[in-house]
């Protein structure tokens, strides 16, 4: 019996939920995403980092069907994802946006209800004739939407017009709307952008609880402390290519990641040939160069890059 269970576990862990294979996205002569391979397993939190313009959001758009990759393919639960956002959503991939895109003139509850419609069935005719199924589903939709609002901590804000809500609440509402789709994979595009440290910690706790529901999460973020404490695995994208894809401890000590973020002597003009390669031995994992003590300025970013954002205490 025990072995059988282990085998089952093994299969669950081995079979990726989402598998990007050699995904390439070109805009004219510009290759925004170049041959990206990325696997995400059920229940896993994967971080996607990289400097601005590395192609992270473009890669997200390839995963959600907003862009059709010029080469390569995205497998989700074993099937190729169609390049149609609606079908991707129905298949079980939901996302949030870097710049919040709520339905501004709807209440919080209505926003979440819209997220749930992919899981309900009544059509316009049934609604007009007020058939029982429509009434039942409508009531159920409302109830489930309220539960998702409670889950993200916005239970009391159900009737607020979303455009009037505070910024941090709007971010959480976007997550609630995505959760209402009951996705197997949740894509979060900079969920803590512009948040203060308190809100960032809450977001971290929320994402951990989302994993507790059995969903996998792929998160783009510039806040390294957030990424390295939250994720099971981190992939670093630089100029459209995956530089490294490994556990946080390895990624945060990889010299190439540091180079990508803060540059290296190799890039100095005039000394490209003679410039010494970074001495990898001094950057060995046993002697971490990147530590993130609380309240330290993040050495990778070096400074806060988000305007109008965090005000550290």
């Amino acid at each position: 019996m025990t072995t059988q269970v282990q085998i089952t576990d093994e299969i669950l862990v081995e079979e990726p939920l989402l598998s990007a294979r050699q995904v390439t996205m070109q805009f004219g002569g510009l290759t925004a995403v170049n041959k990206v391979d990325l696997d995400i397993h059920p229940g896993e939190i994967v971080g996607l980092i990289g400097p601005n313009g590395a192609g992270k959001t473009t890669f997200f758009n390839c995963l959600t069907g907003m862009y059709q990759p010029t080469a390569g393919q995205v497998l989700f639960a074993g099937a190729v994802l169609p390049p149609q956002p609606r079908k991707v959503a129905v298949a079980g991939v939901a996302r949030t946006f870097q710049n919040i895109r709520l339905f501004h003139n709807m209440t919080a509850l209505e926003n979440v209800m819209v997220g749930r419609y992919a899981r309900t069935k009544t059509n316009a005719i049934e609604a007009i004739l007020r058939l029982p199924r429509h009434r039942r589903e409508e009531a159920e939709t409302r109830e489930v939407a309220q539960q998702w609002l409670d889950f993200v901590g916005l239970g009391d804000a159900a009737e607020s017009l979303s455009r009037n809500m505070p910024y941090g609440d709007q971010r959480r509402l976007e997550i609630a709307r995505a959760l209402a789709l009951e996705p197997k994979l949740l894509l979060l595009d900079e969920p803590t952008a512009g948040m203060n440290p308190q809100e960032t910690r809450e977001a971290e706790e929320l994402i951990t609880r989302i994993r507790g529901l059995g969903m996998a999460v792929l998160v783009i973020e510039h806040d390294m402390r957030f990424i390295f404490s939250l994720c099971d695995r981190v992939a670093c994208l630089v100029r459209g290519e995956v530089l490294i894809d490994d556990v946080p401890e390895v990624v945060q000590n990889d010299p190439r990641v540091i180079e990508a973020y803060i540059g290296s002597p190799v890039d100095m003009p005039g000394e490209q040939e003679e410039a010494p390669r970074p001495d990898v031995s001094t950057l060995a994992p046993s002697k971490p160069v990147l530590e993130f003590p609380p309240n330290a300025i993040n050495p990778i970013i070096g400074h806060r890059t988000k305007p109008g954002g965090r005000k550290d205490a």
Partner: protein
Amino acid sequence: MDLLIQQLINGLSLGALYALIAVGYTVVYGIVQLINFAHGEVFMMGAFGSYTTWMLMGSPTNLSIGVALGLVLPAMILGGVLVSVGTALLMERFAYRPLRNAPRLAPLISAIGLSIGLQEAVRLFYGQIPGFPDSRRAIPFPVIEGLTGRSIQVGGVTIQHSAIFTLGALLICAALLWWFVNKTRMGRAMQATSQDADTARLMGINVDKAIATAFAVGAALAAVAGVAHGLRYNNIDFQMGFMAGMKAFTAAVLGGIGNINGAVVGGLVLGIVEAMATTYIPGQFGSSAWKDVWAFAILILVLVFRPQGLLGAKVVDRA
């Protein structure tokens, strides 16, 4: 005093007709930011659809009020709705959807082409059907017992039965529409699409279906207006959609394009203004020949001084 009330009632019933058509402009504009200039022809097709239904029922006349109102009228409305909704859906599918990402001007030109095409199709071919009247001139609309003929006298005020029908139809349609848009799954999907179509898609909403539904809803109300128009003026013709469509468009802009309540209010206000202008403006400027001038003068004034309309247009507020 009687004259004022009389003109108010005339204006309201005329305005209700405009409002029923104006909703179609505004719903479609709200969701795809397109002025569907062929919507007047959708209204005309609705009127011809209801007339055709009546012909197919064997042109029943001299019915009892019960049969006329309980059977013939609902069948005519249903037939009109089917024809106009069908027209609108075909239009959306084949003339507008392929142009959805084209420059704004392309679907507009397409709409004008459709408008002329539909008028000419009815003018040339409707009368060719054996047994059907010549459509190159006005066709007398069937008499529905209880809705045409004698009118109600209240003091010195005359109320046509058709005016009651039109106002009642507007009330029922507006209530149903409010409920549909705000309380049903598809209505909320339409709202979501109109606020941010890309995000709606990512939330699993079938945006194409939401847009088609907006066209269908507008067409259904236009068909009801088509029947009301037939009852009010006692005849229909292939050109009826042009002026009615222009007036309804004015009403939609007056109320705030994209705003459903605005279309209803704009329609009623425009109707009342027309009725009052023909009564209270002295000399030849108050003659009925000038009423269209006053209607379009209002359109110009609104566009200059309050382009968002009386109740405010739907503002495109995406980031």
